[in-house]
């Protein structure tokens, strides 16, 4: 999974979100805005998305890192760093 390009990573994340919130309009998401509130993803959905990402990317996000995942870009950066490690 090492050299996953950013675009494919973005697609994977969006798929994970859509799996839980099928009618979420991720593209219309203004950059830099907290995606959970915008897409009305409650704590349950968020947990399910993390479970999905762990399956897809093998990355298990500890609770202490949740604050880094507030924006979509933040989430992607975090995942990239974890994958690169």
């Amino acid at each position, binding site marked *: 999974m090492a050299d996953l390009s950013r675009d494919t990573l973005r697609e994977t994340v969006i798929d994970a979100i859509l799996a839980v919130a*099928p009618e979420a309009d991720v593209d219309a998401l203004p950059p830099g805005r907290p995606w959970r*509130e915008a897409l009305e993803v*409650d*704590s*349950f959905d968020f947990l399910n998305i993390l*479970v999905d990402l762990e399956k897809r990317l093998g990355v298990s996000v*500890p*609770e*202490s890192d949740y604050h880094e995942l507030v924006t979509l870009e933040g989430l992607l950066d975090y995942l990239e760093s974890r994958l690169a490690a």
Partner: protein
Amino acid sequence: MPSLGADMESGTLVEWLIRPGERVERGQVVAVVETQKGAIDVEIWEAGSVERLVAEEGQKVPVGEVLAVILAEGEKAEGESAPADRPTPEAPRAPSPRAPGLSPPPARATPEVASSGARLRISPAARKRAAELGLDPTGVSGSGAGGSITLDDIERAAKVAEPGRAAPSPQAAPTTDARGAMRQAIAAAMARSKREIPHYYLGHTLCVEPALAWLEAHNAERPVAERLIFPVLQLRAVALALEAVPELNGWYRDGAFQPAEGVHPGVAIALRGGGLVAPALHDADRLAPDAMMAALRDLLARARQDRLRSSELTAAGLTVTNLGDLGVESVQGVIYPPQVALVGFGRITERPWVRNGQVVAARCLHASLAADHRVTDGALGARFLRQLTDHLQEPERLWPT
């Protein structure tokens, strides 16, 4: 005493026409008996001799009772022989009229219709359909004769994720008219709630740092799939607070409060694409953390697939709504009739908080209670809210270790 007529039950012996010791022939008139229709001659059907007269003149004797003892030819009078040997008639008696005593009056059926509250006017077909759909018809407005609820009303309400009612399955994106129908059903319930329930509201902000610390520590070494989410703690706290103040857990129906037997808080679940349902989490007070998490996960999944059980739609004695998830600081909810309370949790935000005289930044949230003033007063509501916040601030004591 012979039966001398269809409706004769007894007769009065007027006159004996024979004396003890006399001979009698078959068909001989031996006595005169007074009946309600007049005096009638009584015949003897066997020849013989009069041993003794049992009934006295003027005595009223029921049909079948012995009047006299006649000895057939050659029969000796033994001691007190059995009364006249006439075979007791085996032909079935006409069913004897029931004992004349008054049977106890039927227990007064407890009136289904309470004195003040009107009985729900709903057609049998609509009531049956509502049961099939697991729909609580109380909130549905009637378009039928006299404002009664009809089949169409139920069918329309069924298309709507009306509170206490399963929503359309997530795959089928609700069509526009379904959304309209959903809106109408929620409107009906909320209008009724506002119309009938005298709400009072209480709120309290509490610091949740200890709870969150406990949660992070609990989740630290667990894979994502086994982690707990904060609502689990909130529901636990609500369950424990209800044990202290049971008056907030039940229903107001037919003019009286009916306490719920168990602690089954309704969990407000927002459905994708709009609509809301608040199925009951059964026995929330008895679930260990992981069991409650599993129960919540299952409830959420079934809610979104429109496969909730009818008991889950009617068991909740109060509802917990967690709009905090969606970034709102405080919630002043509207109670779902016929429940008597609604707990609202706001969003967890970092706020200035005074601790030991120092102002620090701490993650806090606003907890609110909306309650039915017909059932409880502010004092009782406040006690509940204090219990709730105390429990949340001592997470390690939420569950017995």
